[in-house]
């Protein structure tokens, strides 16, 4: 415990914690941004976890076979989009129940990737490792106290994730498409009356959102871990859904929520190394529990898109 107390007050502790937090936020944040795009169009995708697993596994396989992690990330993005297209076909075009279909997709993803992993890579406790993208330390900037290590001494995938987040924030702020997207999620009849196809917008939004979720899976598995294991996403897809609520369906808020989760996750790893009588499972559960509490209290006044999970029918009268 003495070790812990001394550690907590030092600047180095915080710098390392933030750096680890940013790393751990990358995947869940990207998934949350994808889910946010789905939900703003009125599509609730609880299959996020499944999309991350399937796309992440495909990305890992591509990376392992080719030796190129960047190819793996690209494959993750594309497979995510394809799985999203299947989901969109079911819930947007056939108007299947979004909650049930999403959960089915998640369960399918867990089992399907476990199966493929065992068939192809043996599924043992020492999985084969694929190469990871390198680290880029930015001179001077990385010397900035506390934030330097977290933001400017990271793997390439962290910069990629930050770049995509920034581009998305700017794009959603400026694009005409945002208005159509929000109209479809808030008041689809108004969008319809304005001549925008509700079904087409929802389909595209679901595919784009799932592509980002697929990339999120690949960021973790290909970009950060370099190996695959059964159920390796471990609930991060669902945390991403919670983070969307915490972030009030805004990209900035979602990024912040992901960072909060990442830092909590980093913190619990530190706690696990402390010599306490508390079982380590308690610490593993901690970031999830705190995130859920933050969603329950922090987002009390947040209002979800009015037409979330409501299929669209053009009325006849």
């Amino acid at each position, binding site marked *: 415990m003495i070790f812990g107390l001394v550690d907590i007050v030092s600047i180095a502790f915080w710098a390392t914690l933030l750096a680890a937090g940013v790393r751990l936020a990358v995947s869940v944040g990207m998934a949350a941004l994808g889910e946010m795009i789905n939900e703003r169009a009125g599509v609730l995708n609880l299959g996020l976890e499944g999309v991350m697993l399937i796309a992440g596994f495909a990305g890992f396989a591509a990376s392992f076979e080719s030796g190129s992690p960047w190819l793996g990330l690209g494959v993750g993005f594309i497979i995510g989009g394809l799985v999203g297209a299947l989901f969109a076909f079911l819930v947007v075009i056939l108007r299947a129940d979004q909650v049930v279909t999403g959960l089915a997709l998640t369960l399918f993803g867990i089992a399907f990737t476990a199966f493929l992993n065992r068939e192809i890579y043996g599924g043992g406790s020492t999985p084969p490792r694929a190469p990871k993208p390198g680290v880029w330390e930015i001179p001077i900037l990385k010397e900035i106290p506390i934030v330097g290590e977290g933001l400017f001494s990271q793997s390439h995938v962290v910069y990629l994730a930050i770049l995509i987040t920034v581009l998305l924030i700017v794009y959603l702020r400026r694009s*005409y498409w945002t*208005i*159509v997207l*929000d*109209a479809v999620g*808030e*008041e689809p*009849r*108004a*969008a*319809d*009356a*304005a*001549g*925008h196809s509700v079904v087409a917008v929802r389909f595209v939004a679901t595919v784009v959102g799932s592509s980002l979720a697929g990339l999120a899976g690949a960021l973790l598995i290909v970009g950060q871990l370099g190996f695959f294991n059964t159920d390796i996403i471990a609930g991060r897809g669902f945390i991403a859904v919670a983070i969307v609520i915490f972030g009030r369906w805004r990209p900035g808020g979602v990024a912040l929520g992901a960072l909060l989760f990442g830092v909590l996750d980093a913190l619990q790893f530190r706690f696990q190394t402390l010599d306490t009588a508390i079982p380590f499972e308690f610490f593993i559960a901690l970031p999830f529990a705190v995130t859920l509490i933050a969603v329950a209290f922090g987002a009390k006044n947040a209002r979800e898109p*009015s037409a979330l999970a409501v299929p669209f029918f*053009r009325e*006849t*009268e």
Partner: protein
Amino acid sequence: MPLNDADTPAITVAGVSRHFGLIQALTDVSLECHYGEILAVLGENGAGKTTLMRILAGLDRASSGQLFKRSEPYSPHSPRDAVNAGVTLVQQHFALVPTMTAAENILLFRSQRRLRTTRDKAASDLEALSTRLGFKIDVDKPVGEMSVGARQRLELLRALDSDPDVLLLDEPTAVLTDAESDSLLEIVRSLAHDDNRSIVFITHRLREVVKVADRVVVLRNGKVVVPAAPVDQRTAAELASEMVGSEVHDAIRTPQIIGKPRLIVDSLTTSEVGPISLTVHEGEVLGIAGVEGNGQTELERVLIGARHCTGGRVRFGEIDLADIPPRRRIASNIAYIPSDRERTALVGPMRCDENLLLGRTTRLARRHEKAKTLMEQWSVLGLPESVANTLSGGNAQKLVAARELESHPELILAFQPTRGLDPGATAFLRQVLLDMTAFGSAVLWVSADLDELLAVTDRIVVMYSGSIAGEFKQPFDRGAVGLAMAGIA
């Protein structure tokens, strides 16, 4: 800008019919509207006005008949087609996104070729247009935070953004106060007479027809009952009786002995309706007449305790009805026949005998036997074990009546009890409700069907814009009730 061509009608409807399954919404409707003219389409709810507008705006297709725009055949497949042809619709609902600002809403409606238009351009266009029409609008405020009047004006601006030569207005004043609607009507008038646009104006409010329209056509049950004629040649009383119809119905209600007051509604108000004051006596049938959407649903929700009132009281003996949960209402022997039959009265996927138990008892034993007797007694065609969904509309309503009226309730709250039922079931339900008064039941009977109320009630109060617009006693003066329903007291 619209062309000035006095002889060619801007829009022509020629023999248009529309049916939904077996329901005939429009039958052989023909009309035309010229440039610089306001044509009012007058009719009650369900007269087919909205269906006609939706067809003109590309939201629906006619089953038969033709449309012409400046003598050219016109058949819009989508709202976009209609806008491109210069026809835009201001709908009653759903055309604005409440979380977006006024400018963003305009942007949403701009056609693809103007996709690059920025928010700022939309905002400045909007400001210029509103200034020209003589009112102010906050372009950066989310629509959900605007007053209903401001929202309705924005709807109009939104429709004008594409510079249409034909403007379709579907009950544009339905949710406005008199002052707000007057200022809107002023704008509408100038759009037709100064800008030379052609305006088709749908309404059930006579006052507005008389105020702004140049010509008026009356629809009833999907048919044109009076072809377009200049408004100044018609009287309000004539139009009122043409709108509500003049079929003679014999009163089936014979005068009764009326007892003590049973339900006293005393200056009831909510954020949307009021003040409403009325009394229903023992053995009396009080009818509430009015075009739908004038506060009847609000009244229903307050009376059954589903909505809090902001002022006033609803007294039933010692109890304040607005304050008690459904369980106590049922225990106080008050029957409730809901207007939303599908969702409130019955649980569709449950069996008939189970539906008969809802709210009545917790004992499941003997339900089948009891239901069998009850269903025979109330001539419900169906089996106790069949699912309520499989009953016809009439039989489902009889089942509701059986459950609610079996105990000879002291007070019956009946909301649209016969709406949409076949003539046999309608006659049956009217008769059982009237029979209840012989046992001393007080009946509050809300209906949009004026003929029904004239036939079955002892007194009628008319609801208009959320408050009581008049009270009438037997023998009823049909024309006077019609005028009150149309907002001309």
